[in-house]
């Protein structure tokens, strides 16, 4: 058991070394001399997944070609760790990256604590009117801009065309159809209908929006999760799993979901454009045409899916702000966005990029762009990210049968009122 202590110390030491590798000692000598040429080191924390990171690394390092005196340090930080790691580094004033790929809900959170540099009037915010308005909305906090949109996305229903065809069912358009389709799929193919993320609250949102609900009502400063739609959403989760239409896990959900879908053990899942490259690497999707994409199943109030995506933010304590601004401008430029779409089928945030034929003709963009346009914007408040934790807890309680959907919804609401002092 003594080992346990040693291991904790080891993990802590590793974390410190790793964040120290974020490197702020060498070469942060600020923007170069009077000739306007940029120099110094820009540390970039990228949060893209395994299938995407090589592309991002190549793109980031290409910045050095345009600015030979700038050294870009690319660091891939897994999405699940990035938030805590950045906060540790930024709060401790050491090891924070100059630029980070930040989830849309993190921007207001980080900005409210003073970790991010305002970007209005800097080189980073280039041709701002070109950004999709809903993408730009996620970069603002109290009237200032703290990030630049890089990628926009939303959830959709991914399905295995072959399995659905064998079962003789079309892609389900509603939760009710999903259930019947799942039963047919099980009978005819042996595969489970749906993989339901029971460990990630982001995946809860389509069911909540589908019933016409929301987590909070930002305009009227009211907590709405404990209204009837919230209860129904929890009930749907439980029903899907209890009726064996879906399987779920309380941990390791992402890996289990991807493995189950890629190997054909599960016929459908909710997922976003970021999963496309990874799915195509799966055994059952050697022929990418086998991957079908449809809008998320509708609840009683219609289809609703959260708007998500990634922004680029600059650390307020960066010693090399000018080079960082230039790097952000480059990484969200039309050219770079076009490349990430062509290579990874990710959705650009610039309207001009959608006019490029190669982007406009991309099958995934064709599907996801209208979906993104209709996606539900989340409240871009400082506590936006914190709203997820109570849902995560209650999802697990409901799925384990520890709590009723009614109790889960009211507990979530109570937690929100603690978090949002001025909300009713």
């Amino acid at each position, binding site marked *: 058991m003594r080992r346990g202590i040693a291991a904790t110390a080891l993990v802590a030491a590793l974390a410190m070394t790793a964040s120290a590798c974020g490197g702020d000692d060498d070469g942060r000598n600020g923007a170069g001399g009077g000739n306007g040429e940029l120099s110094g080191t820009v540390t970039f924390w990228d949060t893209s997944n395994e299938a995407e990171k090589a592309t991002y690394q190549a793109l980031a390092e290409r910045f050095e070609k345009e600015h030979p005196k700038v050294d870009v340090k690319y660091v891939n930080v897994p999405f699940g760790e990035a938030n805590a790691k950045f906060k540790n580094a930024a709060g401790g004033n050491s090891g924070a990256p100059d630029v980070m790929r930040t989830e849309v809900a993190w921007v207001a959170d980080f900005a409210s604590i003073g970790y991010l*540099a305002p970007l209005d009037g800097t080189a980073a915010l280039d041709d701002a009117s070109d950004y999709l308005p809903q993408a730009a909305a996620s970069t603002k906090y109290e009237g200032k801009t703290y990030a630049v949109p890089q990628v926009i996305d939303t959830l959709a229903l991914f399905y295995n065309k072959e399995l659905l065809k064998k079962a003789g069912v079309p892609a389900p358009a509603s939760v009710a159809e999903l259930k019947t389709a799942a039963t047919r799929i099980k009978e005819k193919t042996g595969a489970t209908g749906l993989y339901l993320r029971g460990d990630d609250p982001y995946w809860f949102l389509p069911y909540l929006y589908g019933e016409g609900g929301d987590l909070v009502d930002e305009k009227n400063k009211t907590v709405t999760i404990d209204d009837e739609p919230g209860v129904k959403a929890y009930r749907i989760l439980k029903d899907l799993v209890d009726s064996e239409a879906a399987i779920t896990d*309380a941990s390791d959900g992402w890996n289990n979901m991807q493995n189950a879908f890629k190997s054909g053990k599960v016929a459908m899942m909710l997922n976003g454009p970021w999963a496309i490259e990874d799915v195509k690497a799966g055994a059952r999707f050697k022929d990418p045409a086998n991957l079908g994409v449809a809008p998320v199943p509708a609840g009683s109030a219609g289809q609703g899916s959260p708007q998500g995506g990634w922004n680029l933010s600059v650390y307020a304590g960066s010693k090399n702000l000018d080079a960082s601004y230039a790097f952000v401008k480059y990484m969200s430029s039309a050219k770079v966005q076009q490349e990430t779409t062509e290579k990874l089928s990710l959705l650009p945030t610039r309207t001009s990029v959608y006019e490029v034929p190669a982007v406009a003709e991309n099958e995934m963009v064709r599907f996801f762009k209208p979906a993104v346009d209709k996606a539900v914007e989340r409240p871009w408040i400082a506590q936006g990210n914190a709203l997820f934790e109570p849902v995560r807890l209650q999802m697990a309680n409901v799925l384990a049968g520890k709590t009723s959907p009614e109790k889960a919804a009211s507990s979530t609401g109570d937690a929100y009122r603690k978090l949002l002092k001025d909300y009713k």
Partner: protein
Amino acid sequence: MAVETGQSVTKAGGTQGAPGRAHRTGHKNPRTPGRLHRALATHWYAWSMVAPVVAVIGVIIGYPLARGVWLSFTDANEANVERTIGVNHIPATYEHVGLANYRAILSDGVFWDRLGWTVVWTVSCVALSFALGLALAVMLNRTFKGRTLYRTALVLPWAVPAFVSVFTWRLLFNERSGLFNELLTGAGFDGISWLNDPTWAKISVIAVNVWVGVPFMLIALLGGLQSIPGDLYEAAEMDGASPWQRFRHITLPGLRSVSSTVVLLSTIWTFNMFPVIFLLTRGGPGDATEILVTYAYRLSFVISPRDYSTSAAWGVLILLLLTLVTAAYRRALRKQGDTW
């Protein structure tokens, strides 16, 4: 503790440090020096030897402890503590709130739920690993072929870094692709949601912690067993004592001093065993396997904004609980006649 060390060193210095003392007090100080001055002058060498240790302990234990206690009386969180980051300067806006944090924690069901489970977790882990460790130690405390091999194999869990073994267990427990469920379904049973069902998750974390903890018990108890004189057993055998009677009246009392120490140590470690729970289930499903320390971690590192003050108050409460347990335990032992 520093005082005790100082005193013992002082005594040592007093009897042995004669040359230095004579030199210092004899010639250069005509008037009678004060008590403190005399002590410093006499034992300056001892004091300077102790000083680095005191300083280091003060910095790495004393300061964080004092700061933690102080924070627990404020409402400090990530958003209102002072910091300067580049162009942004954020002033400190947190306030003293007295005992409000403690009142809030103790009146909330979350603390008592977590405490209940922490006690169950600690008691079952310590009891199981002690029982298993003792059984294995007794088995290994006799000469047989391949004893070294068995000892090595049994100590192995201790030699593997905890996070490696916990991650391995996590793979074994995986509901869809783990070895345990493959074996169960292969034998015609239903698979078990090891880490997804609250009850099974609790059983799983206890099982892993026992696995990690047994080698320590085994080694300590084996050492204890080997210090029991063999003639006691011979004499008992002569008197016709059964194996159980020998175990009960010779082995257990003989192990008393070792076992009371390992049980206390193991209780403290298990109570605060962060890595096994955090790495295996992250406290899940939901918060089913969350013990006090993992919850305090969640408050100060996972939720947003990070709640430093409540987390500090949890830390202080954990420390108080452990101090109480230790004091009660020592008292109980002393009553039984243990000089510990």
